């Protein structure tokens, strides 16, 4: 310190080597001999691979051809994608009706994107999903017949749920509304079963009917993954609560179910759904193949979601449970008002990661003959006119999957940071 002269000194710029692009390159690519050699080897390898790939995929590729024969001897045959993309996206859906699955996909993507905005996380979202799902399925099926029994059952279920979940916090007027809904549903169902009320169904049929066997491509993948998660979510909550319950029989049932499902591959559940489910049902009663796959996906997803939610439940401090008990809340009140709102907030990012997993895993349904996106891509290869270009089709399909999954994983990371803002130091 004694050597420092008093008075101002001009501030010198930092050495050129340490700042700017040159400094960055020095620091990050050539910090030592070994590092420099690694960098050079990697650059050469990347250049070699990239030039080979570009040569194949761009410079010698065929973008326009009448058949696969014209592509032979050249690079990539993107003409194949150009020829088949409608089939790859929408499967065997009637060709001139392709606008329907297109708009159904748009509706589902819109719902997913709206749900990603935190400002939308309220009751409006449920309404949006109800209307959006109805529109999407109406577009896919073309005609929807809703029987009176189903309407009454939904009324009973909604009324009952409202009574249980809103029982503690609803105004007397709202509560009476739920009670009335449940009563109408229950009385109507009794009337329907005893035959007092005649059978009737609400027919909404603006378009031609398209059966699920003809569905294919992106809409199938999206429906299986999205509705798999939507229905598995409440199921998973119940399983997780059951697993943490003090009641030994309930706990045993839930643990048994979760561990059984998690211990076996999804394929075995799908094979079970396709060959065993028909045996389980009374003779004459059949369930659509698509629905069977959807049920298998829901059961599978439920077990995994239950474990994630259990993680959220375990992360809550014991004081939350004790405080709720001390307030004199009953189990339903404690769970719906204190525990779940906090536990679910923690598990949203891992839930999105699970959704990415399901989105990829739905590709397994091709083994039981459902035409999801990967299966339609696979089928596009079968055409003898275009045989011999699997790389192009699979790369195209991989690119689409990547876009979906990568954007969701970025969103999940972003959300994790957002949600942790309050607790981070």
């Amino acid at each position: 310190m004694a050597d420092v002269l008093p008075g101002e000194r001009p501030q010198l710029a930092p050495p050129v080597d340490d700042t700017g692009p040159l400094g960055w390159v020095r620091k990050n690519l050539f910090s030592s001999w070994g590092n420099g050699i690694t960098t050079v080897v990697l650059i050469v390898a990347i250049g070699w691979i990239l030039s080979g790939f570009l040569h194949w995929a761009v410079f010698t590729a065929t973008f326009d051809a009448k058949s696969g024969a014209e592509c032979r001897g050249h690079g990539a045959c993107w003409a194949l994608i150009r020829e088949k993309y409608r089939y790859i996206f929408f499967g065997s859906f009637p060709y001139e009706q392709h606008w329907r699955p297109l708009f159904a996909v748009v509706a589902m993507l819109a719902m997913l994107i709206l749900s990603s905005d935190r400002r939308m996380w309220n009751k409006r979202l449920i309404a949006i999903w109800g209307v959006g799902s109805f529109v999407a399925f109406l577009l896919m099926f073309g005609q929807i017949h809703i029987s009176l029994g189903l309407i009454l059952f939904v009324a009973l279920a909604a009324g009952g749920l409202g009574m249980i979940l809103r029982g503690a916090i609803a105004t007397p007027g709202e509560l009476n509304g739920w009670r009335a809904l449940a009563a109408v549903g229950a009385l109507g169902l009794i009337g329907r079963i005893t035959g007092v009320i005649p059978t009737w169904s609400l027919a909404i049929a603006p378009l031609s009917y398209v059966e699920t066997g003809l569905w294919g491509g992106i809409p199938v993948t999206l429906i299986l993954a999205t509705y798999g998660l939507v229905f598995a979510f409440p199921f998973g909550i119940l399983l997780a609560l059951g697993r943490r319950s003090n009641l030994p029989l309930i706990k045993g049932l839930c643990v048994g179910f979760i561990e059984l499902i998690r211990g076996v591959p999804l394929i075995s559940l799908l094979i079970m759904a396709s060959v065993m489910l028909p045996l389980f049902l009374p003779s004459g009663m059949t369930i659509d193949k698509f629905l069977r796959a959807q049920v298998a996906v829901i059961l599978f997803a439920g077990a995994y979601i239950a474990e994630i939610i259990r993680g959220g439940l375990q992360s809550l401090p014991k004081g939350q449970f004790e405080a709720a008990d001390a307030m004199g809340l009953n189990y339903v009140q404690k769970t719906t008002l204190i525990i779940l709102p906090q536990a679910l907030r923690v598990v949203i990012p891992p839930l999105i990661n699970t959704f990415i997993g399901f989105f990829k895993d739905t590709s397994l349904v091709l083994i039981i003959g459902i035409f999801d996106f990967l299966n339609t891509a696979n089928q596009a290869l079968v055409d003898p006119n275009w045989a011999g270009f699997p790389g192009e089709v699979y790369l195209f399909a991989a690119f689409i999957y990547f876009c979906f999954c990568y954007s969701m994983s970025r969103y999940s990371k972003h959300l994790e940071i957002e949600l942790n803002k309050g607790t981070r130091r």
Partner: protein
Amino acid sequence: MAVEALGSQTKAKVPPWNDPVIRGWVFQIVVVALVGLLAWFLVSNTIENLQRQKIASGFHYLEREAGFEIGDTMIQYSPASTYARAIFVGLLNTLKVAVLGIFMATVLGTMIGVGRLSPNWLLAKICEAYVEMFRNVPLLLWLFLIYKLISEAFPGPRQAINVLNSFFLSNRGLYFPVPLADPAYEWMGIAFLVGIVATVFVARWAKKRQDATGLPFPTIKAGLGLIVGLPILVWLACGAPHHMSWPELKGFNFDGGMVIQPEFTALLVGLVLYTSAFVAEIVRSGILALHKGQSEAAMAIGLSRGQVMRLVLLPQALRIIVPPMTSQYLNITKNSSLAIAIGYPDLVASVNVTINQTGQAIENILIIMAAYLSVSLSISAFMNWYNKRIALRER
């Protein structure tokens, strides 16, 4: 707990419908009764359907002749063998893919994960691109792509890529020479196992000595010597048999030697590439979770870089890494069932053929579930044991 305690203390005052204990039991009985009712409904339907379709239930079909070929068998198998043997062959194939996949995915994944933390920006970015590329595309798509590339990009057997006239790479797989059967190899196998057991004892002794005296012992070198050296000694002692079975082109395919089939290669490569992306993320987050002070303190007391990693960082990172790694190992085992899509005869594929031939869906699915459950439970039991062994001993 609080509610229950309250309930038992004031039992005399509350009416039974408000007693939480009684309520709990009533609720449980109702739920179990509903589940039982559902089960009874399904079972009774099933019995009725089976009787109508005249399918005999029971596992007797397992002793009948299977009648189908299996492309890759680790034990003696022919179409004249029983269904039970066919399913067992499938199970062995599943285990083979799972064990190799777990080993290779761990090695590759650890390399990629450490690579992501490299000070070299380019290497870190390439590893990140690798992880994102394999993580965000379905495994099944990778399997199809790899399988199709192998079967379309490689030449037919007649134009096979020939290395030293002994390795032949074609779209039928990789053919390579193997030694002809000789009793010496069985003895070598035993020597190999003895080497492993001896290494375990040497490692224990070395650790005890180092704990007591501080003197290090080259355990890794000694272990390698035992595991590799003992079989070689046995081989020499047996007169060094060296008769080989060479692959030869006969007609449309090769004969003799041993083959690694394209289905197997595609399945293993696909599984390893896909899972290693997840393993890399686990390893990376495990290392990142450690406090910087750990490596600084270790270097301050004069340990070398390798020692810092081996003695200080890795044992701590392992505690974080092992639980999620267990679920990745289970995933590899379960995902190996995708073999059915590219035609590799694993457990699910053999059972599926059996279902189609015999119609015994329920028994066969029970077999699949029992097999996977026991494999999964053994892997988790082993990993839990290992996890407990390395866990922090808090006092």
